[in-house]
């Protein structure tokens, strides 16, 4: 090949490389931007007086005097609304469908009216807690959605019709301009930093409160998986490197381990259900003697399932790390009279530690994010944060499963978008933190080994 051609080829390969890296970075940015922006929105947002009320009543937090002051202003601002409603009822009676609809819309915005008895569900006890939600709720007070069928060639088009039209000429006519003008006073929006999103229990299926139960559940499952998988993985790797004979069966075993790494995770989930829960009934041994004895989902079963999922990764990492230890270390240890096992424990494993640690932490990230294996074995949609001893018998909500669950199964999935994004961001950050820890740990151990 001529020199000129070679240069052109070289350059085009460089260009291709840069182009693909740019493409990947762009994809990453497109993926992460909404997660980060909207995820942060779960913690930093414009809260309303209703948010403070939830915190005061259910979590006993917040500045009581600030709240009292804000609440007083809000009540004063809301009073005319309820006065107008009373005036309307006095004139036209309570049995009115249009009025019923309006009252419901108002409850979404402001919470139950002062004269109303306290509703059972927490979501009905409070108005909109976030300013963005409040604006939407206010829109629903001011407008009614109707369908326009005027064009016969088209499907019906939704149109917003001012609700004021329906109450023209009644005492409620002036309610609508009042609401739109005094929304700020009625709801007292203010910027807030809500760390409780990470550390509070969920209230009424994530309508309010935080995701601590999910975070804790994810941590339990991940740590449990590592506790089971790491000893097994390292011992297997030692066997494969140091003890396994040169036999075709060992070759088959190796391919099996590699294949295990490629098995779809839902299969692991089914295996966990069939084996750990139905056959072995792992949690039964830890249940009280007088319990019904029915073995069901538990963190223990989920951890075991995840452990099997990450086992091949850990075996592979440990095997490669042990194999990479210079043979001279082993010879040196043996030559002063150390036994094989002694050599492995005192020389080989310490030298292989950085590689093994990296494998462990990467598989921790994997275990934290896996959804399919825990659906059958450990995850429930709603649950409280568990004590350590409860992990043996209790199922738990966990981040990856709850993200799916809240997006698809929740009755008010649209109203808790911020929770969904917050969970995704938390999961991403958790996995990133784990990976960063792996890098730092690896660097530190390598530095210690290198002197």
């Amino acid at each position, binding site marked *: 090949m001529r020199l000129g051609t070679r240069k052109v080829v070289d350059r085009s390969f460089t260009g291709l490389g840069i182009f693909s890296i740019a493409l990947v970075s762009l994809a990453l940015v497109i993926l992460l931007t909404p997660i980060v922006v909207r995820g942060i929105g779960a913690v930093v947002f414009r809260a309303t007086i209703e948010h403070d009320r939830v915190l005061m009543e259910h979590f006993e937090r917040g500045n009581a005097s600030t709240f009292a002051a804000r609440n007083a202003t809000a009540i004063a601002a809301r009073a005319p609304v309820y006065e107008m409603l009373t005036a309307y009822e006095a004139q036209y009676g309570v049995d009115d469908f249009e009025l019923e609809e309006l009252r419901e819309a108002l409850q979404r915005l402001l919470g139950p009216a002062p004269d109303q008895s306290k509703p059972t569900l927490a979501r009905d006890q409070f108005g909109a807690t976030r300013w963005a939600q409040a604006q939407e709720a206010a829109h629903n007070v001011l407008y009614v959605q109707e369908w326009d069928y005027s064009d016969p060639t088209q499907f019906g088009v939704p149109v917003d019709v001012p609700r004021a039209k329906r109450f023209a000429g009644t005492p409620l006519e002036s309610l609508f301009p009042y609401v739109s003008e005094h929304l700020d006073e009625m709801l007292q929006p203010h910027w807030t930093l809500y760390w409780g999103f990470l550390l509070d229990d969920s209230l009424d299926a994530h309508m309010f409160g935080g995701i601590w139960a999910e975070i804790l559940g994810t941590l339990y499952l991940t740590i449990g998986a590592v506790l089971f998988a790491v000893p097994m993985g390292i011992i297997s790797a030692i066997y494969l490197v140091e003890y396994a004979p*040169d036999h075709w069966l060992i070759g088959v075993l190796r391919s099996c381990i590699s294949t295990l790494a490629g098995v779809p995770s839902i299969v692991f989930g089914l295996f966990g259900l069939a084996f750990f829960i139905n056959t072995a009934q792992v949690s039964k041994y830890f249940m009280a003697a007088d319990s019904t004895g029915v073995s069901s989902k538990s963190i223990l079963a989920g951890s075991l399932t995840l452990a099997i999922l990450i086992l091949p990764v850990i075996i592979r990492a440990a095997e490669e790390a042990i194999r990479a230890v*210079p043979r*001279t*270390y*082993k*010879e*040196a*240890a*043996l*030559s*002063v*009279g*150390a*036994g094989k096992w*002694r050599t492995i424990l*005192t*020389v080989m494993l*310490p*030298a292989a530690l950085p590689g093994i640690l990296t494998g462990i932490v990467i598989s921790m990230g994997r275990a934290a994010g896996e959804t399919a294996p825990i659906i059958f074995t450990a995850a429930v949609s709603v649950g409280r944060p568990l004590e350590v001893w409860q992990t043996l018998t209790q199922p738990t909500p966990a981040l990856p499963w709850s993200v799916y669950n809240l997006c698809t199964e929740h009755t008010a999935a649209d109203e808790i978008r911020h929770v969904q994004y917050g969970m995704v961001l938390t999961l991403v950050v958790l996995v990133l933190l784990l990976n960063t820890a792996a890098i730092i740990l690896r660097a530190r151990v390598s530095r*210690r*080994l*290198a*002197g």
Partner: protein
Amino acid sequence: MFYGDSAAVRDVTLGVPRGKVTAIIGPSGCGKSTLLRAINRMNDLIRGCRATGRLLLEGEDVYRPQIDVTALRRRVGMVFQKPNPFPKSIFDNVAYGPRIHGVRSRSDLQGIVEQSLRRAALWDEVKDRMRQNALGLSGGQQQRLCIARALAVEPELLLMDEPTSALDPMATDHIENLIAELRGTYTIIIVTHNMQQAARVSDLTAFMYVGELIEVGDTSGLFTKPVNQRTQDYITGRFG
């Protein structure tokens, strides 16, 4: 000694006198190292390697089926071609052997470490940095540390497998002086490429060629009046 079906070393009968330095010389691939590593059964690590015949250490056959190989290796120390300290502190490197043989007390260990390092002529250079990683030492220092590590378990026999081939002339000089000092206290077998080195440090020299022992004798005799033609050719530089 066989690797698979091919014999790497055969028909070797060699007596190594106690307290003397015996050098094994010969061209590359002649089986010097294989013979040396047969003595502390390091060849066991190599798959498909087996030995026939007898190899006596103070009257005990090293290849006896019931022998405790770790106990044997404690009696037969070894220094390798390339310095191979552990990625641990200087102290831990020297204390490694005594520790695995059950020395627990801190003061005992310190005594052994100091004595071994003094014997390996390294004490003065490292006494103030015992906690530092051994990989931070120079090549020559690392090799002396490895000698100290081997001496720390009080071996009867010290095997050296081309201990200076990875070192510069200064460091080589250091190691050779050290061997001269250790002579008498320890029985030493040294494998070397370097004929001048064999002539300088050894009492006895054995010449090997393609797996066979050609000639063995007093170092001065072998280098001045070799009996065998091939020995003569080798030491005069006609081949190898």
